Structures are given as C-alpha cells and as structure tokens.
C-alpha cells in the first residue's frame, strides 16, 4: 500500500481560495484559529470595559461614568470575559491542537465545528450590538438609536433582570447572546469528546494521552453536563421577560433562587472549564523546557478528572449568603474544600518537575508558567477561605471576592494562555516570537496584574463592596484604588506588547522550523504551520513522549523530524512507497476503538460548505427579530432553518460513494459505511441527545423545585388535564418508535426500500396524530401560563414534548423519502439507525415529563 503523495493529499484537504472558501472552511485548524482570534478580540473589548471601570474608581467621588453606565460596563466586561473569551479560547486551542496531538487528520464533525464558531461570533456581536448602537448615537443627530445595553451583571439575577426592573431590551440581547455562546460551547464539547474517544491514532492509548488532551476531554465532559442548565435557565428567563411566564416571580409561585441554581450549576464548573485546559498548557510546556517527562503523570490525570467532576457539585457555594438552610450548605462547603486536594496535586507535580529538570530553560513561555504557579496558588488559597461558610458570609460581595477570582482567572487562566501563545505560535505561524519583547511583556503583565488585584483583597476586608461606582474619600481606600487602576493600565500595556509581538513575528519573524523547542508530542511532528492534512501518514504511537522515544532520549538535542508532516514512515500506518500526485483522494480520518485504539473504520469527512454559516445566521436573525418584535423577519428565518438542515444532511453523490475510501489512511479494507455504536456519528448523536436529555431534566428539576417551595402545587382550581388522553398520545409515540424499529430490522434483513419507506412514513403519521392530540389537550385544559408558575411550567413541559415530536417527525419524513429512493441497504443504514435512536429518546423524554407533570401528588395547602 503506497503512502499518499503530499500533492494529492493537499488537493483533497485544502480549503478553496476566495470568499466562499473562506466562509465555508470547516477544517479544525482554521475553525480553531478563528475561535482563538475572536476570543482575543473579545478579551480586548472586555479589557477596554475594565479600564474604564478602573479609571472611574481611581479616585474617590469620580464622575467619569455614572452608576447606570458603570453597571453596563461591569456587565459587558464580565460577560465578554466569561462567555466570549475564556471558554471559546480554551475550546479553540483544543480544536486546533487536539487532532494534531492525537494523530488525527481532523475532528469527526467538521461542519458542526464551523457552526459552533459562527454561533459564537454572532452571539458576541449581538451582545455588543446595543453598545455599538449607543456609540453610533454619538455620531448621529438626536440620539436616534435606543440605549439598551445590558446592565444586570454577568449573572443576571432576577428579579433585577425581570421585565419589571429591566424593561429595556438589554437583557434580552444578553440572554440570546449567552444562549448562542453556550450552544456553541456544547457543540464544541461534543466534537472534542468524540474526537478524543474515537479518533486517536493507533497506539495513542489512555496512558499515553498528552495532558492537554486529558484536560480538554475533562472540560468537554463538564461542558456537556453543566452547560444545558444555563440554556434552560436563559430560555425560561426570556420567556418570563417576553411572554410574562412567571418562573422566577415569587408573587405568582415562581422562585428567583431557581435562576441562581440553574445559573451556578453552569457557572461554577465554567470556572474550572476555563482553568483545567490552562493547567494542561502548563503541563505541556514544562516538559520540553525541563527536558524531562512530567512527574506524576497518572496523578495529574486523576487531578484533572476529579477537579472537573467535583466542580459540578459546588454550585451552592455561590449561594451561601442567600439564606438557604445550613444543612444543605454544609455538604457543598465540604465539597468546595475537597477540590483543593486535586489542585494541590497538580501544583506539587509541577514543582517536582521543575526541581527534577535536566536543563531548565527560562524563556517567555516558562516565565508565564512560573507567574501562573505563584498567582494561581495564591488564588487557590483564598478560594479555600471563601469555601468556608462563615468567612464567605463576611467577604461576600466585597472586593476580596473580586480579587480572589481574578487571581484564579487571570493568574490561573490568562497567564497559561499567554504561555501557550509563546509556546505554540511558532507551530501555527511558522515564526518565532521575539523573546526580549516577550520577557518585557511578562514583567509588565505580572507586575500590572498583582498591582491591580493584590490590594483588592485588603479593600474587600476593609468593606469596599463590589459593583459600587464610586466611594467617599477618607475611608482608607483611596491609595489602594489608585494603585489598582495604575496596575490595570500596566497590565494592558503588557498585553498590547504581546499583540504587537505577534503581529511583528507574523509579518517577518525568524522561521521556527517544525520543532523549535525539541518537544516530545505529536503536534511537533508536523510542519510549521501544519499542512492541511496534518499527517501524511497516520502515526503509530509507541510511547507517551513519541518524538523523544523515536530518537532515544530527550538529550538528543538535535532532534528534528526528517520530513515535516511525515510521521516515521516505516512505522506509521501505511507503507513506504509513494502514491501518485494525481491520485483522487477523500477527506478522511481514522476511527479507532475506545480502549486499545484498534482501527475500526474510516470516517469520510465533508469538505467546504457555507451551510453552517447560513444556519448560524438564521438563528441570529431569528433571535434578534424575536427580541425586537420583528416577527415578519423572524418567521422566514425560522422557516429557513429546517431547509438549511435538510441541505446539510441530505446525502450527496460523494457521501454515497466516496473516492478511494481508506487510501489516505493506508486502510483500504476498513469499512466506511458503519452504523450503531461503533460509528463516530452515533457517538455524536448519543452525546447530543444526552445534552437535550439534560435540558429536559433541568426543566423537571425546575418543576420539582417550584413545586416543593410553592405554598400550594398546583394552585387551587388548576389542573393539567386528563391523564388517559395523555397516555393515548404516549402510546402513539411508542407506536412511532416501533414502526421505525421495524424499518431498521427490514433494512438489516435486506428488504426493499418501499417497505422501509412505508414503515417510516407510518411513524410520521402516528407522530403527527400524537402531536395533534397533545396540542388539542393543551389548548383545552391547560390554564393561562401567565397566571402561575405551575401553569407556566405545564406549558413549557408540553411545548418541550411537542418540539421533540416535531423534530422526530421532520427527520423521519426525510428518512422515509430516502428509503423510498432506495438509499438504504444492509451496509448503509446509519440514518435509519439514528432515527430509531431519536424515537427511543423521544419516548423516554415523554415518559419522564408525563410522570412528573401528571403523577406528582398535590403539595402544600391547596
């Protein structure tokens, strides 16, 4: 079997030139790079917000900005940094580097990756749209544009953010923007988890996975588990604001604290989701610059996984001061303190690696790592302090907390990201950054950061509250605030120096070569910048430090891969001989088994398409139109969405018969038409359904939370309608699942397409009947959703069931048409397989919702 030639590979993988090619790029490298670049842009914008905030606080009783503008600034600052900088930044780094580190050509769902990026970008633009409109007012006569900048903080607590107290559209923009950003993050997480689980090169087993990849896997799992709650909470809050459904309105049986639960179930893990990849970056950088493998690799993996898991159970520690019963708080306090153990493990492992260094190289990347170690440890210690309930009650909402989380998020996340920029810039751009400028930038940012935030601990202990727009003179805060403001500008200067340095190197820095640091992991086996196809031959990994292993020991200071992009050709998956440059090849990557990375099947990947951009644009337009009451604009956007999805998913000729499958992987005998749990798309669908399932469970949680705390549930005289007809509807849904299952069985048995089409069409028919029955019952029996939280929840649960049914009916109809066209046979039945899985999911979701909405006994004094 000949190795594919570079020219043939490049023809298959290269993103076409021109604007359409640029907009339609789906490869993990351009998409990952766009995530990183856009995140840096939002870091700049959010940073500008913070400079205005700090300037306002530089001296007492300052009037640079008033209280409303101050609230708007800290809202956009926090939102930009938390939602539009940190998470997209680490996910972008993961998207770019994970396939390179695990020996894959791309991620398994490139179009989803692109969709995630465009959702993130449009979400960010929607967040800042009101600010841009406000700025435009400066230049237009008579302030014609409305001033609707969000001002409810990055946490948006109701009732402050309810329609009564925030009547303008700012919060609506915030909610749509954040929801889009979080859906983008969830999409990225699905991609990352499936890629790491199923697309590792042969030999890249769990015990050899680079620590950065472990950290990205851990945050992928955490995102899938945590982020559905903010999507749920945001949708409920927008429904309350727009349609007056009182989920958080205490007067009508709602609970403002429900929002805090939903928000912090997401919000607390989010901090660790930002922090863990940063630790992965640190672990990757320490190895080449200490010239030795990391100490306690296994314990670091445990620390990464346990931190991610513990982070999911700490959310109540943000609510210690809300008056919750202490019995509940104690258990969250205990868990909060537990997380110090894995964090400590990592810090000691890094220190041990530094102490055991064969040759310590103190370049800019390492300086940022050392800066991280100092500042993060400091932030971790104050974290243990605020995990203690009595201390937290004293320090809550003071500058002590502001200082603590900036030590964790800037020291613990931003410094490692700066280190990562200095470490990986040569790989991405093929140019080295200037070390002298880099060291100057480090000292500016390090000194500026500590000058800004160290004294804020003291300010908090002296009683300065967060989010105050000014303060009186003579409270002992003046000098500390002034120093803090100066520090912020010094930090900003350091960051601008990094940007300037990047620009200068990109324009004409010294060439880096494939492996300037003589590092040990697979990304350094590729060219700098990597070729469009990453690896010409899929690697066959034999050790945790594959590049060092190939040449014996790290002391081999002259290590360079023989040919950029070639992975040790004699040992890779493939042969020695060179293929023809005229070969026609498909875009494909290898799917391997979960445990022993055995090649299982070839994944044929799609090429450039603007479908993701079009879909994201329609979602943004629909969201904007909904906020602005432009329903004539929202309607076509909504109608366009299923059409775009159909265009996206409908099989093309190259999907039905790809060119030379397996040729580029050296695996022509591996199957490419697979279905069920061995296939990567099945994994993606299963994870996606898991996320939707969690959204359903969050709704169920909300229902039960409101039920338990309401004076009476249901309120007197309100009922959800008769159960028997609901059971009939459930029976119809079950029948739909049976029909789809029958079609799959016939496909496996080799039956004709007509029979299959009939069975799937039957599932569509019963699905439509169930939908009609559901809507009829809702309209006939459900009380006015604006009257009570009970009625609102009943309507939301009913709408959820209807929406799920609508989706499965639409998908089934498309699959029925495909079955009629004879597109399924014994080998090619993935779509049918997925439809069956979808039907099972809908049945399960209906069962859970029905059980909660109809079988929960009345509670309280009805």
């Amino acid at each position, binding site marked *: 079997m000949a190795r594919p030639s570079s020219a043939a590979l490049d023809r298959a993988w290269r993103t076409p030139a021109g604007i359409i090619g640029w907009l339609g790029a789906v490869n993990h490298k351009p998409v990952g790079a766009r995530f990183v670049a856009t995140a840096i842009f939002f870091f700049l914008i959010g940073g500008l917000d913070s400079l205005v905030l700090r300037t306002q606080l530089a001296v007492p009783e300052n009037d640079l900005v008033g209280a409303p503008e101050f609230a708007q600034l800290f809202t956009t600052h926090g939102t930009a940094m938390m939602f539009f900088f940190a998470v997209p930044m680490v996910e972008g780094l993961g998207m770019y580097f994970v396939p390179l580190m695990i020996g894959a050509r791309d991620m398994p769902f490139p179009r989803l990756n692109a969709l995630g990026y465009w959702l993130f970008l449009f979400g960010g633009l929607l967040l800042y749209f009101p600010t841009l409109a406000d700025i435009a007012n400066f230049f237009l006569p008579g302030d014609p544009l409305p001033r609707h900048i969000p001002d409810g903080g990055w946490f948006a607590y109701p009732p402050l953010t309810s329609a009564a107290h925030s009547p303008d559209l700012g919060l609506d923009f915030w909610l749509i923007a954040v929801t889009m950003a979080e859906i983008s993050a969830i999409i990225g997480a699905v991609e990352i988890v499936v890629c790491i689980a199923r697309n590792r090169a042969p030999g890249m087993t769990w015990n050899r996975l680079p620590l950065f990849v472990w950290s990205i896997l851990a945050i992928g799992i955490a995102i899938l588990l945590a982020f559905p709650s903010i999507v749920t909470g945001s949708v409920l809050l927008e429904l309350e604001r727009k349609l007056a459904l009182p989920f958080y309105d205490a007067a009508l049986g709602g609970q403002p604290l429900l929002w805090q639960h939903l928000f912090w179930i997401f919000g607390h893990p989010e901090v660790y989701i930002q922090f863990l990849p940063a630790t992965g970056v640190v672990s990757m950088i320490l190895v080449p610059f200490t010239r030795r493998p990391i*100490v306690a690799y296994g314990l670091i993996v445990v620390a990464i996984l346990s931190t991610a898991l513990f982070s999911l159970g700490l959310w109540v520690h943000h609510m210690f001061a809300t008056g919750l019963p*202490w019995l*509940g708080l104690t258990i969250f306090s205990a*868990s909060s303190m537990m997380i110090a153990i894995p964090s400590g493990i990592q810090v000691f492992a890094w220190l041990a690696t530094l102490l055991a260094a064969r040759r310590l190289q103190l370049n800019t990347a390492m300086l940022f790592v050392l800066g991280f170690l100092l500042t993060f440890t400091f932030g971790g210690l104050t974290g243990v302090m605020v995990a203690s309930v009595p201390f937290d009650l004293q320090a809550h909402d003071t500058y002590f907390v502001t200082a603590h989380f900036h030590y964790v998020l800037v020291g613990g996340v931003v410094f490692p990201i700066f280190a990562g920029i200095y470490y990986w810039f040569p790989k991405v751009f093929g140019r080295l950054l200037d070390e002298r400028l880099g060291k100057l930038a480090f000292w500016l940012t390090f000194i500026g950061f500590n000058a800004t935030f160290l004294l804020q601990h003291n300010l908090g202990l002296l009683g300065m509250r967060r989010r105050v727009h000014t303060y009186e003179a003579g409270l002992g805060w003046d000098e500390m605030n002034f120093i803090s403001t100066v520090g912020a500008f010094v930090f900003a200067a350091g960051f601008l120096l990094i940007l300037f340095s990047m620009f200068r190197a990109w324009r004409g820095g010294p060439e880096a070569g494939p492996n300037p640091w003589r590092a040990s992991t697979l990304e350094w086996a590729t060219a700098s910048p990597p070729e469009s196809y990453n690896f010409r031959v899929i690697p066959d990994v034999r050790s945790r430090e594959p590049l060092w292993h190939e040449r014996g020991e790290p002391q081999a200071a002259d290590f360079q891969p023989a040919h950029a992009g070639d992975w040790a050709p004699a040992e890779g998956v493939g042969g020695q001989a060179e293929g023809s440059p005229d070969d026609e090849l498909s875009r494909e990557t290898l799917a391997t088994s979960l445990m022993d990375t055995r090649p299982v099947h070839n994944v044929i990947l799609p090429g450039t398409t603007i479908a993701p951009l079009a879909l994201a644009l329609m979602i943004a337009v629909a969201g904007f139109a909904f906020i602005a009451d432009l329903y004539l604009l929202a309607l076509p956007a909504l109608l366009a969405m299923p059409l775009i999805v159909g265009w996206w998913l409908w099989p093309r000729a190259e999907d039905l018969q790809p060119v030379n499958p397996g040729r580029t992987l050296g695996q022509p005998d591996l199957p490419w038409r697979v279905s069920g749990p061995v296939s990567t798309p099945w994994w993606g669908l299963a994870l996606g359904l898991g996320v939707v399932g969690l959204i359903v469970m969050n709704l169920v949680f909300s229902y039960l939370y409101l039920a338990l705390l309401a004076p009476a549930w249901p309120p007197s005289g309100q009922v959800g309608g008769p159960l028997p007809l609901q059971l009939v509807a459930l029976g119809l849904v079950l029948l739909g699942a049976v029909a789809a299952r029958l079609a799959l069985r016939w496909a496996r048995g080799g039956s004709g397409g007509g029979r299959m089409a009939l069975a799937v069409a039957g599932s569509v028919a019963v699905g439509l009947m169930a939908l009609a029955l559901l809507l009829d019952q809702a309209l006939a029996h459900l009380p006015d959703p604006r009257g009570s939280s009970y009625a609102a929840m009943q309507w939301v649960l009913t709408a959820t069931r209807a929406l799920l049914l609508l989706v499965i009916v639409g998908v089934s109809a498309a699959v029925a048409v495909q079955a009629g066209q004879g597109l399924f046979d014994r080998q090619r039945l993935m779509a049918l397989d997925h439809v069956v899985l979808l039907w099972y999911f809908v049945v399960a979701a209906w069962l859970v919702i029905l059980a909660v909405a109809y079988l929960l006994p009345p509670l309280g004094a009805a």
Partner: protein
Amino acid sequence: MKAAGRRRDTLPLIFAVTGGAWAWTLQLWLSWIVGEPLCFLQLGDRTLGAAPGALLWVAIGLGTGALAGAALVASYRLWRGEGGQSVTDEPGNGGPRRFLAYTGLVLNVLFLLAIAMGTTSPLWLPACA
C-alpha cells in the same frame, strides 16, 4: 464473541473508574434534597411529614459510601490483576487498562473522602442555623 468478551471486561472497568463519582453525585443530590426540607421542617415553615432527619442523612452517607467503597475495591482488584506496578513512567509498565484502574483507585479514594466529609459536615457547622 470477541465483542461480548470485550464488553464483559469493560463494564467492571467502567464501574471501577466512575463508581466513586456516581456515589458522590448521588450523595450530594440526595443530601441536598433531604437537607433543605429538613431544615424547613425544623423552622416550622412547611409540613412534609415527620422524618428522622439525622438518620436519613447518615443513611445516605453510608449507602453512597458503600457504593464508592465497592468501586474502590473493584479498581484495586483490577489494578492488581493488571500487574499493580507504578503507572507514572513509560515505557514497559502496563497498558491503558492498568492505567485506568489506577486512575479509578485514586479517584475513588478522593470521592470516598468527599462522602465522609459531606456526611460528617453537620458536626462542624450548625445544621439549620
């Protein structure tokens, strides 16, 4: 047959690696769900029927602790079965199974500790202040 054999091997490994995490998650949610109404009950704010609160709290801790303990034993046995040596260095000391068993072993210790701390937490903080 091969696939069935692989599944048979994989399920104990999954329990050994994730059992402690599941147990801790269960404890956290059950204790929280039980804890809030118990305190409301004590404050006389709401009637959910008399519940032997402390007993329930301890029972949740013991039950989930037993589950995490079982996962700990499972991970230890798997680790020993795969050779039981250090996994911190490479090459030549074990494959992914032993590594995951080791990971599960330490994870289960951590989660067991978390369950113990959660169960005893009312001893060092007032339960229903």
